[in-house]
């Protein structure tokens, strides 16, 4: 059973990675990152059940919290950038290309 959970988790994680790499919209990129984190959460909970320990559950909670904090920050930054540029395509952020 655990293999299935872990496989799903890894699959979701890979999807997230793919999203981060291939998508150009900042929001979609952040959503992909959230997907990666949630994939990890799934893994934590599954493994916690496997090992009958609470660590995994706790870590999942922590990951959620951190994801929220990161999302909060990301939201602020994205709003800021949208104000400046009026667009959310990662390609247009080119002031710092070097």
């Amino acid at each position: 059973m655990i293999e299935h959970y872990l496989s799903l988790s890894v699959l979701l994680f890979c999807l997230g990675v793919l999203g981060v790499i291939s998508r150009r919209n900042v929001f979609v990129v952040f959503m992909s990152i959230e997907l990666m984190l949630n994939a990890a959460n799934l893994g934590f909970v599954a493994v916690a059940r496997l090992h009958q320990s609470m660590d995994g559950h706790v870590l999942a909670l922590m990951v959620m919290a951190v994801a929220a904090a990161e999302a909060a920050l990301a939201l602020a930054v994205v709003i800021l950038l949208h104000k400046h540029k009026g667009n959310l395509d990662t390609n247009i952020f080119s002031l710092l290309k070097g």
Partner: protein
Amino acid sequence: MFDVMVILPLAATGAGAILIMLVAAFETFRREGISILGMGLFAFAFFIQLTVDNSGDIYPFAEVFNGMLVANTFTKVAGLIILACGFFSALAAQTYFTQNKGFVLEFYCMLLFAAFGMLLLTMVAELITLFIALEIMSLAVYTLVGYDRHSVVRAEAVLKYLMLGAFAGAFYVMGAVLVYAGTGSTSFAAIGAVVADSGYLSNPALVGGSFLILFAFLFKAAAFPFHAWVIDVYDGAPLPVTAFMATAVKTSIFAVLANFLLINPEVHQGWVTFLFYLSILTMFAGNLIAIGQQNLKRMLAASGIVHTGYLLIALVALGSERFSGGAILFYLAAYGVATLGLFVALSYLSGQDERRVSFDDFRGLAKVRPYSAACIAIFLLSMAGIPPTAGFMGKFYIIAGAFQAGHAVLAVLGIVSSILSLWYYLRLIIVMYFREPEQRFEVAELTLAPLGTIVLAVCVFAISFYPVVL
């Protein structure tokens, strides 16, 4: 209450951050006052940390924290470095914001929060706490990079940093899942016990997980395949923040990386080959990038990559009997002093709105401001590793470590890279000393940075003969 002492610097930093947050909200102080307060808090935490006597591994409040934290000499010194970096970054900020826009009272609060995360990071002995500490640090640093709402450059830098940082964070979490799946525990001690019991390479989940964790750390430390962001982000961040990122973040990441690698010799063994090539690539990639830069901030960022490469050499050599942690910390201290010195000097030399940051802008500095130029030259020489500066001793320890671990090639390549790096370090010295001045390099009144620069320049020599502690 020995445990209290161990945890006190951490608590002082965190409480200080909250204090400044409230002070900022109630607007009790203006900029000057809050700068002094921030610096004072850093100094306070530093002195507490200095007085802590922790030899051997202490698990403070094992009952409350479940052994999730560990304190020893290594963490103590790493903490000292971080707090010193914080202090001097705060000092640089004090000066920087007399000439630059975009100050908010919360600046020092975020600085302290970041330092709090870093201190925690050096002390962690468990994957969950590690993640929390990592993110406390990262979030605070993101904020520091991008708090100036009116600057597009800052916003772009922070977005880049945030996107990639969150990406790396996700990698870390996935790595933690796999390690947890492979060992059934998140505590370093327990993982080490499992490895000792059943081997490292025979545990695929553990191997995969630890590699994902490694990726995350390498990203945060700006090692080779993950180094691209660092230049833009350092460039886009305000100078004091860049100083803080370049020094303190690196210190904490390497401290925790060393801790993680030492879970069990087998883990380290499993990584050595990988780190070996990575360190070479990091050094040379960094050098190639640095040589092409016209902007000092970008050059320093790139040279930071090179120094990451040296530190990776130290990691490769980790575990050989003598130089283990000491060399890393010594190098970090040496690098930190020099980098901070440069940034502190830049914080008052760069003028309004950071208008002087390219090599050419510093033409003839030595004629106009000889002491600043001399200090900058000292910092650059330290980074290049010229004796009797601290940078030299740092490299000495690292190369000695590499030799001792049997990686002569790495040592030689480290030296070759250090020769390459002369190119851009000397360039600034030449520009400062051998060209005619065009600018006046005026400095705002009542600033502390020049003093700080001199103190750091003295430190460059002072550290050099400070013996390796571990």
